[in-house]
């Protein structure tokens, strides 16, 4: 079984997995127990598994563990130490989450858009994550101030 060294939330982890093709999502969740990143569809549609890889949004359900080696991976657990990222703050102030399950991926998409230089409503066009609870209006309000 192959081993890989990953940089997740600024920490180095060596993982042994069954295959080089194992998606990063399941390495995070089932090997590293970083369960903040969510499984939603497994086919890159819903965005619940979105993480930041070298500053870019990546759907971790379709990113092979081997291709994540040597890259900086940030998950929702590493977005801030204390919910202080401006998007997290805006999510609390605007009372965005309902069930909350999609919001890890939603916040990572927003954080990536901010990192890419988007502000306010221009973030919205970068966010394609699904929210079945329908929190979209509050998401719009929350990102308008970012």
């Amino acid at each position, binding site marked *: 079984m192959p081993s890989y060294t990953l940089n997740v939330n600024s920490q180095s982890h060596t993982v042994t997995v069954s295959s080089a093709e194992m998606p990063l*999502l399941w390495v995070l969740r089932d090997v590293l127990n970083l369960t903040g990143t969510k499984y939603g569809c497994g086919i890159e549609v819903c965005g619940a598994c979105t993480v930041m890889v070298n500053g870019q949004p990546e759907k971790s359900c379709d990113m092979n563990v081997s291709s994540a080696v040597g890259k900086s991976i940030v998950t929702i657990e590493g977005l801030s130490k204390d919910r202080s990222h401006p998007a997290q703050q805006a999510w609390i102030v605007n009372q965005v989450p309902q069930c909350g399950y999609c919001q890890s991926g939603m916040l990572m998409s927003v954080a990536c858009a901010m990192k890419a230089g988007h502000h306010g409503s221009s973030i*919205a066009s970068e966010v394609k994550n699904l929210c079945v609870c329908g929190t979209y209006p509050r998401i719009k309000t929350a990102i308008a101030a970012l």
Partner: protein
Amino acid sequence: MNTSITVDRRKFLGISATGLTIGFAIIGMAPLDDAHAADSTTVNSWLTIGSDNSITLTVGPSEMGQGSRSGVAQIMAEDLMVDFSRIAVVQGAPSLSSTAIGTAIVAGGSSIIRNNYWKFRNAAAVARETLVQAAMNRLQDNNRSSFSVKDGVISHSSGKTLSYGDVAADAARLTPPASAPLVPDAELKVIGKSLPRQDIPPKVDGSAKYGLDARLPGMVFAVIKHCPTFGGTLAATPGVPAGALALVPVNVGAALGRGADLAGNVNAVAVVAGTTWDAMQAARQLTVKWTLPANAAQWSTAQFTAQAQALAANATPYVAGGANPPGTLYTVESVGNAKDGVNKPAPGAKLVDASYLLPYVAHACMEVLNCTVDYVPGVRCTIYAPTQVANAALARVLLLTGLTADKVTFNTTLLGGGLGRKLEIDFISQAVQVAIALQRPVQLVWPREEDFTHDQYRPMGLVRIKSALDAAGNITAWTCRNVSPSIRAQRGSVLGATGDSQGYEAAQGLPYAFGSRLTEWVSHPSPIPVGYWRSVGASINTFAVESMMDELAFAAGVDPVQFRRSRLAGDTRWLAVLDAAASLGNWGSPVASGTAKGIAIGSAFNSICAAVVEVSGTSAASFTVKRVSVVIDAYLTLNPGNVEAQLTGGVVHGLNAALYGQQTFVNGVAQRRNFNTNRMMRLSEMPQVSVGIMPRPARSDSTKPIGGVGELGVPTVAPALANAVFRLSKQRVRTLPFFPNATMGD
């Protein structure tokens, strides 16, 4: 007030403080809750005021995004007279006995707040007065008016103060009163405020724990692989596939009381591996031989629709004491001779006859079904489950393991959406079966494809309404026949003379002035498993009724709001909600070219809700939803901000279903397997939503029914949308969804 209050001196799980514990009864939802959880006297909830000034509420309903866990803390903060953020809410554990510690209550039917608002308030007031009595004893002044309470501190006229924690141990030795004065309406400080929900901060940093996030030492992962065809069974047990640790055949543990026709059938295998992905890969490569039901070739969407059409035209009436098989016609209500009214209309009358067809729809909760079980034979079983029905799930665990309840620890996790799907316990039963076979901790996961293809769907419904209008535009006769599979009959209930109330809810007892009316329901014999889908029957019937009201308004040449107004004479609440929605949606003000509005109103769970939808576009095949204005009258409003969130969420749920939602079947196999073919709205598609809340009465009355909120946004959106599209295009859409072939890439 029907309530039951005790001081409880047991030690409670997760509460370290000693102090005063007030036990009280809240009620669940019949018939989903078993009898003791649904009665109003069995103590099942506890408020603990610790000597360390902690305040803990142990209460049963699970949190699936509806906000009721935070909501109950908000109610109790009022009469306890403490800051709401001080009340920590602990998820109660299930129980099957009226004497054991147990707090699980069904989270469904938009029921938690509406059924228990006054019970929570009274228990908090009782706790407060018991603490004050302890302070009176301590200070040896039995004059209550010498004492006042603010922010959990009891002040005496002498200037002395005692915190709740200071007197909590003394209070625990007192006998609490059965009831205590509530904060008067005019002095409410907490109830009615848009307070921030307590459950939100952990949902922005990944620390909130859902069922799928349970992790136990030495745990393995299993994924389910069902027979793709409903009713199919395992023909031969396959060998353990490469990459897997084990393969476990599992029974249809099935739903709450689902009929004996399915029980005992092995219709799935669980494939076990070291990670979810390894299990998924092994399951994908596994070929399983199934025995298919003989008539599966007839189980296709087209056949189900043809059957419904035949039953809408001709069905055998219910006979008291008879067999009344699926396909039976039940008379729900009959006033006057409506049949003659529509079949032999008076000269000059207009007859409108229309059939509305709604499909099966999947729940598609963001968190797929899953359950984690640690079972040690004969010793103990620990469960982590995202469930709306922990009591029923516990009963299944005891049945499967043979353990007594004291050996089972049942942890209800957060739910990544419930929407009614997690009222079923099939996935919990399967996980326990796998754990029994493995005898090591295991998490069972339904891959998304299994979640879509083995749902217990919102039933399909064919609703035919015939109505006669006289020359003055009065509705002289109304007949409505709903043909849909019965949720209750599939669970083994014997239906009475009026059939399954969830089939005809929101079609019966309408407040409109109909000269004569006949409401009927026919049980459709479809074998597709059906279940409770946010707003249940109201999501079907309100579409039909409110589409027909719009068709009648058009036939009468009357504005749709005015048409409804003049037929709602005397029903002041419906009229007020209709008017408020029309006002919020700027009904009547000129609309831009290429845009149009539609309206609909309905009632569910004791609340009334109306929606105005504005669309722009060119036809029923090409339009955009621009705005939705929705107004609710729930009698009392606890947290307006959360009401807005829930109604907006309901609007999205209703739009997703109306625009795109359906599950189709070919030869008993569900066809839509993932979000790519089950489109849902994304952020860019979201219309502007405005929510209006009817003001709470100046003086609230505990005898008046409080309405639900969580499901109310759903039913009126689809008809308001269809009515808007009709005004836009003159194309009347009577079959949902609007865009049956839409995919996620569009």
